[in-house]
């Protein structure tokens, strides 16, 4: 393969520009968070914060009840993701591996559920939760967040399960495993990347949600997205504090990404070799 110098150069050049395009907002958020006020509102932007300060972070963390919000957010998000994985794996297995009457209908339901516009249904969800006397609690949030991510999880896992060679499972059955044992020992380990990637998606969705928690939990059980949006109102044009808050809000997602992405990619390479 011979390529001209230009032919070798331009993809890298474009990649460099794209890298800046994708990273810059993240970079700008982080650096603004560390900049002293005067640097933030200087007419010439300060691109590298030499005089870093953590005072914006102090302000963000010292907002009333910050750690309770962190705890609530983590509880709700992780709960929703785990529950959805559990329910979705079972359903996805049935859809991918078994033929039964009503299967098509179920697939259709999952597809429609995937489209549910939750933001515009907040008032009906609110009235249901209110009438069950479950306002200001974490459980309804967890359940509804689970519902938001479950269709996508089923959809995706089903593809992963279908890709696991059936023979592997069958040979386990021949060896005397029950169907459940065969699933646990053969299919589940191969699903790891799928579980990772759907968890990642679920985590982001639940972590981000705010129209619902805004209306359901006015007194307690509030989560970080509320804090972030209210923070901005409270602090007006205090961009340093707002960006510090945004950075803190983004941090757990990045951590989850880094932890899960590696496994997901590892699984991917294995798949690539096979294909």
């Amino acid at each position, binding site marked *: 393969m011979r390529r001209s110098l230009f032919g070798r150069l331009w993809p*890298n050049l474009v*990649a*460099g520009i*794209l*890298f800046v395009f*994708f*990273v810059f*907002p993240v970079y*700008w*958020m982080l650096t603004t968070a560390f900049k002293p006020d005067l640097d933030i*509102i200087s*007419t010439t*932007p300060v691109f590298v914060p030499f005089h870093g300060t953590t005072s914006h972070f102090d302000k963000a963390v010292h907002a009333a009840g910050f750690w309770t919000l962190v705890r609530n957010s983590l509880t709700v998000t992780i709960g929703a993701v785990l529950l959805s994985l559990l*329910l979705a794996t079972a*359903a996805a297995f*049935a859809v991918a591996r*078994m033929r039964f009457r*009503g299967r*098509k209908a*179920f*697939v259709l*339901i999952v*597809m429609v559920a*995937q489209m*549910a*516009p939750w*933001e*515009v249904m*907040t*008032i*009906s969800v609110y*009235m*249901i939760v209110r009438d069950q006397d479950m306002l200001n609690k974490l459980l309804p949030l967890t359940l509804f967040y689970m*519902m938001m991510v*479950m269709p996508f999880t089923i959809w995706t896992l089903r*593809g*992963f399960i*279908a*890709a696991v060679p*059936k*023979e592997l499972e*069958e040979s386990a059955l*021949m060896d005397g495993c029950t169907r459940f044992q065969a699933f646990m020992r053969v299919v589940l380990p191969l699903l790891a990347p799928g579980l990772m990637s*759907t968890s990642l*998606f679920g985590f*982001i969705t639940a972590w981000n949600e705010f*129209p619902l928690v805004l209306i359901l939990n006015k007194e307690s059980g509030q989560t970080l*997205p509320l804090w*972030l949006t209210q923070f901005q109102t409270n602090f007006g044009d205090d961009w340093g504090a*707002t*960006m510090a808050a945004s950075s803190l809000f*983004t941090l757990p*997602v990045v951590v989850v*990404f880094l932890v899960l992405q590696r496994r*997901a*990619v590892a699984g*991917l390479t294995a*798949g*690539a070799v096979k*294909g």
Partner: protein
Amino acid sequence: MAAQYKGTQVRAPDEGAAEPGPLRPAGGKPPAGARTARTAGTAALSRATPYLLILPALVATALLLGYPLIQNVIISFQTLDAFQLIQHTTQWTGFGNYKAQLTSAEFWHTTERSVFFTLANVALIMVSGALVGLLLYRLGKRMRLLLSIGLVLAWAMPTVAGTTVYQWLFDTRYGVVNWFLDKLGWHSMAGYNWFGGQFSTFAVITLMIVWQSIPFVALNLYAALTTISGEIFEAARMDGAGAWRTFSSVLFPMLRPFFLSTAFLEVIWVFKAFTQVYALNAGGPEGLTETLPVYAFVEGVGNQHYGTGAAISVLTILILLALMSYYFRIILKQEDDL
């Protein structure tokens, strides 16, 4: 995360349209050997197994989604303002809310805007996402890692934080974008108010949505590409096909299911995008950037005419279903082939 399509969406052309794994036996029935030893009782149980497996998901969907949806439809036939909500009274209005919307120019403008907005964004996302994905495939190892990191960071940024950051980037006075455009010689952009006009507000919203969505398409496409044997490209090159021919007559047909299902998800995500549109400029100026979900929220929750809001949301769902019907047909057809 990039792996999710490798099973269903990528397959060599000779496999036909049938679903999923390459090693699936013909007919898809469980092999006889596994069953013969079972008694009638376990056979009944195993007939029930699929239903038991989907039961929890079905129950959850019925309670957590079906119930609110029905409630939403019920509300849409009511006059439900602050008074009725606080008093817990029910006041039916028949098709009143629907009639008001279907005869209002504002509703149709918003619908038109919403559809156009969705199509434009999805087209942008799919095209640039595909290009970035192909670029990833072409890049050397190091640059690929670098670009992947950039993509993952943009992807990981939660929407709520992302909108805050974009507001800051495009801030009238101290925003770095205005400064940069000014420095480029476009001096009228110093102090430019991006959120003052319909077009410029949409430009920022679109840029943000595209920025957030490209990574999903690009990384998945790259993952899909790595599962395709290099021989296929080799063969195409031997036949003298250029880059565009290789893409349009070899890659695209192979990846058609991938593009279909990704486009499906993107259409849903963009059409439903609420946080991005609402948090950036609350549908302003003058409601000119309201998309259907934002319109439903403003009329329903904002103006406290919850019945009206519910009617708009039901109409929103119907419009989305109509947009998706083509895709539904394809998917259901694939299910038939199983």
